[in-house]
């Protein structure tokens, strides 16, 4: 029920509506809950509504940490 996925905003229309992209597919998205959104931002979309922006810096830091975890596993497995 509370699933939401990150999508990239690619267009903004009037009336709090815009278009966001995920895996090559375009979706109409309602944007009134994130008034500061700009084209190019990643947003978290739930039932057709963007409920928050995704902080790319935080996401990239976490991804880097996870790739270190994967390297640690591979290094341990090779020993």
């Amino acid at each position, binding site marked *: 029920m509370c699933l939401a996925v*990150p999508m990239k905003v690619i267009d903004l229309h009037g009336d709090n509506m815009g278009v966001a992209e995920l895996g090559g597919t375009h979706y109409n998205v309602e944007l009134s809950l994130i008034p500061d959104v700009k084209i190019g931002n990643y947003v978290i979309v739930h039932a*057709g509504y963007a*409920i*928050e922006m995704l902080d790319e810096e935080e996401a990239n830091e976490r991804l880097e940490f996870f790739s270190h975890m994967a390297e640690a596993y591979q290094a341990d497995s090779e020993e």
Partner: protein
Amino acid sequence: MKYIEGFRNADAGKQFAREIAIEGVKLATQNRVIRLMEVCGSHTMAISRYGIRDILPDNIELLSGPGCPVCVTDAAYIDAAIELASRGHIISTFGDMIKVPGSEQNLALARSDAADVRVCYSPLESIELAKDNPDREVVFLAIGFETTMAPLTTLIPRAVREGVDNFSLLTAFKLVPPALFALLSDPAVNVDGFICPAHVSTIIGSDAYRPIVEKHSVPCVICGFEPLDILYGIKNLANQLANDRPVLENQYSRVVKPQGNKTAQKLIETYLEPTDASWRGIGIIPQSGLVIRQGFSKFDASIKFSVSTEGGEPDINCRCGDVLRGTIRPSDCPMFGSECTPANPVGPCMVSSEGSCAAHYKYAR
């Protein structure tokens, strides 16, 4: 699929499994078994789908909590929706709701009896539906926790703006933090730490859980719904418990802010007000629900059409209430997998794709 795939790296997952095993050994030397509750149905589903339970040591147990809004919807709410459909109104709903048992039947059966029940992906469609059917009333089944409540509340100003009068919401909005407090004060419930929901927290903010950590010394870690997010959360909860150092951690900081989404909170505050709410299988939890404020009651279907959404009688043999509080596992219910299956559900935990019984049936049987 940027910002999805990197959070599913298998090798990183295996490394987390090793590190969780180390925490398991620490806990074992203290003769401890810890029970962590994932509050949210989306976590329940992800934990089952990725087989996370299977890679944990025996002394780290995961329990599913009451975090599926479909599962905690009172039978009387379904009865009210069926009653409104029988009066000729159009019922617009998320797909999960149509098989939830009411006192006598569900919306799918009512639909086969000519009730006009439409399933939508986005609630915005229901406003369009109202515009396309100006001579009829459209009622949207507005259930949900904070995540869904915020988008659904935007429908009220939108309907006002667009002058749509034949549209209303049958609400069953519920709040997660009061339910967590209710669980912690229930002597039958035994929880050592919470895996806190990703998108409820997006709206309410991580600070909302601070009282749980401070008053009950129960650690809370907010996790995203990807498998590495969950494994990281479990590792940190186990580590906190092994070291007797319960704190609040936000592992989903790429989305969740300490104060949450203030635009959403302001919107909810403008249009909704707190009330006691009935949680199916659990009972009334004080101030755990929200209803539409009096000034906007023309959008409240329960007032507009005088129907009651509480006080329903679910099947007496159904153990969903115990499953939702984490006091039994789905397979401990005598009806699990026999009388009660996803194709023919008796209880709401088997209906919703994110219910703990449905997840257990699909992945763990």
